[in-house]
């Protein structure tokens, strides 16, 4: 309660929370495309590559205004991205190699510049390192306004180019053949991604920023099979992480905001990976076990069926050892076999005759004839 009260009364906290929320919404939404296009690492490359831009901007302009520093970061991040994409397109070097190379070269250069700036006397350099790990508490009202503008710049094209971005992400080649310039679309989308990363550097920092892009999208993908809902949910997760992270770090002394936000969003992603229905690992495990059981009983039923097909009397009964003879299909122990047969009997699919003899029942016959194996077991999925 006190936390919420603080949120309404404490001006600085309100600014920081608003900033982190805007950041979460923007990077969450645009991050969906990075994830779906299997370019998750582009965020990492852009944010690391932005560092020399920040340093150079400070050296050239001599101002520590966030706008100038972020402009430098944007230019450097954008150039790095274009270099990566063109290396991939024009040379035989693969995308991930190009990415790793450019990321480390730019980041290394950035560290060199930062160190150089620190050695300049009277440069009042303190403050540039905040871009390494982020320092949300330094957010000013004008920074947050900038974040709001950037959120608009990112989200509005996403709305207008909704179908184009979807098409580009799903099937680039097809998009090309029906007359959409995928080069242009790619450039627009990449630029939007770069912008949304750059704007988060002050809050989360170059090292952790890519998780703000990836984690909400990965989490959202777990809960839905619709792109629109995924984007909405991803924004929501990003915003929630921003708010929670800020509030947690403000309530505990000496807790950095950016890293806490990242921890929160990672937790959300982790929980989604485990517990989301259908795609969640735990759900999947339960379903696999259920299928396994179903298949077990179907196999046993089909053994009885094939045996009865060979016999003149359709509902002739067999003892356990006869069923175990079909060893190549079946790995069950006698005990297991008995257990499965009893279960089948409960559902009326087999009949138990005296002296432990088993036969397929009329109902069982019906069930097995419905199963269609000619289509590779398709009926299971229908």
């Amino acid at each position, binding site marked *: 309660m006190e936390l919420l009260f603080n949120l309404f009364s404490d001006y600085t906290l309100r600014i920081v929370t608003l900033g982190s929320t805007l950041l979460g919404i923007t990077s969450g939404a645009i991050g969906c495309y990075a994830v*779906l296009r299997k370019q998750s690492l582009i965020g990492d490359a852009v944010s690391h590559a932005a560092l020399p831009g920040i340093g150079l901007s400070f050296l050239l302009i001599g101002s520590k205004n966030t706008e100038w520093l972020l402009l430098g970061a944007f230019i450097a991040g954008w150039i790095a991205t274009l270099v990566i994409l063109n290396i991939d397109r024009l040379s035989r070097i693969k995308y991930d190699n190009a990415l790793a190379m450019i990321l480390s070269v730019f980041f290394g250069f950035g560290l060199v510049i930062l160190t150089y700036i620190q050695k300049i006397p009277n440069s009042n350099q303190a403050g540039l390192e905040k871009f390494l790990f982020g320092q949300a508490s330094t957010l000013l009202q004008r920074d947050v306004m900038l974040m709001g503008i950037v959120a608009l710049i990112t989200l509005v094209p996403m709305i207008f180019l909704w179908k184009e971005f979807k*098409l580009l992400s799903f099937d680039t080649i*097809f998009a090309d053949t*029906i*007359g959409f310039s995928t080069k242009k679309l790619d450039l627009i989308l990449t630029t939007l991604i770069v912008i949304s990363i750059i704007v988060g550097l002050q809050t989360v920092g170059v090292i952790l920023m890519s998780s703000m892009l990836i984690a909400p999208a990965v989490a959202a993908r777990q809960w*839905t*099979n*619709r792109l629109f809902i995924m984007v909405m949910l991803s924004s929501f997760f990003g915003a929630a992480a921003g708010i929670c992270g800020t509030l947690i770090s403000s309530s505990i002394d000496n807790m950095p905001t950016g890293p806490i936000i990242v921890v929160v969003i990672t937790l959300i992603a982790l929980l989604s990976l485990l517990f989301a229905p259908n795609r969640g690992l735990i759900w999947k495990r339960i379903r696999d076990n259920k299928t396994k059981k179903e298949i077990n009983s179907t196999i046993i039923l089909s053994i009885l069926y094939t045996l009865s097909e060979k016999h003149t009397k359709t509902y002739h009964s067999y003892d356990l050892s006869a069923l175990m003879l079909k060893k190549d299909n079946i790995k069950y122990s006698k005990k297991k076999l008995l257990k499965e047969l009893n279960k089948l009997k409960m559902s009326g699919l087999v009949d138990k005759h005296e002296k432990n003899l088993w036969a397929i029942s009329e109902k069982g016959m019906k069930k097995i004839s419905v199963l269609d194996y000619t*289509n590779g077991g398709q009926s299971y999925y229908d």
Partner: protein
Amino acid sequence: MDNISVKVHDLTVAYNKKPVLWDIDLEIPSGILMAVVGPNGAGKTTLIKAMLNLIKPLTGRALFWGEPYENNRKRIGYVPQRGSVDWDFPTSVLDVVTMGTYGKLGWFKRPGKKEKERAVEALNKVDMVSYANRQISQLSGGQQQRVFLARALVQDADLYFMDEPFQGVDAKTEKAIVKLLEELKKMGKTVLVVHHDLQTVTEYFDWVTLLNTVLIDYGPIHEVFTEENLKKTYRSTIDSFYKNNGKVI
């Protein structure tokens, strides 16, 4: 000349010095079903991609109804190999098929009721209406192929390129595709299909192109699909001849 849909002239494509297609000259008359046949690595997919400007050829070009590809995009439908996309993409069957209408819609416009109706109609033709709202990752290979075909149908093109639609599909899908090809032919459309199964070429198609880096021959099946031509197409010496840059070993 409207009775010739496509003219390919002097087309050569190479990846890193190795020619994949060598000096292809080809004319595709309107209204035929043409199979493109040849061994693995013969350049069948490359031929389609080069014609559609997806790959830049070293020399040569393809003309559609006497004009370059750019002028006729909307009259040409393309069915890529189904392995070319990620089927775990968060979208529905109907949505993918509706993508076929995007070309005519152009930039910014959203598909509306009319587009959705046309998508449903196309799904009906490939016997997939009941799957319209299904997530695409829940489809079998054959069903995926039929979704791609429906997407191409929605484009309402005059000329179709299909890259291995019969590859690894179930019997039901194979029948559906064959039925569809016949329908397209009846409607006067031209269809070019990359095909692997030599057994069914004469049954499904009326024209054939035999390709193995060079164009062995093309024309109506009864003239071209001969044992001698097939031997030429699948003879490995031809393959190695070009792999060694023309030096006979």
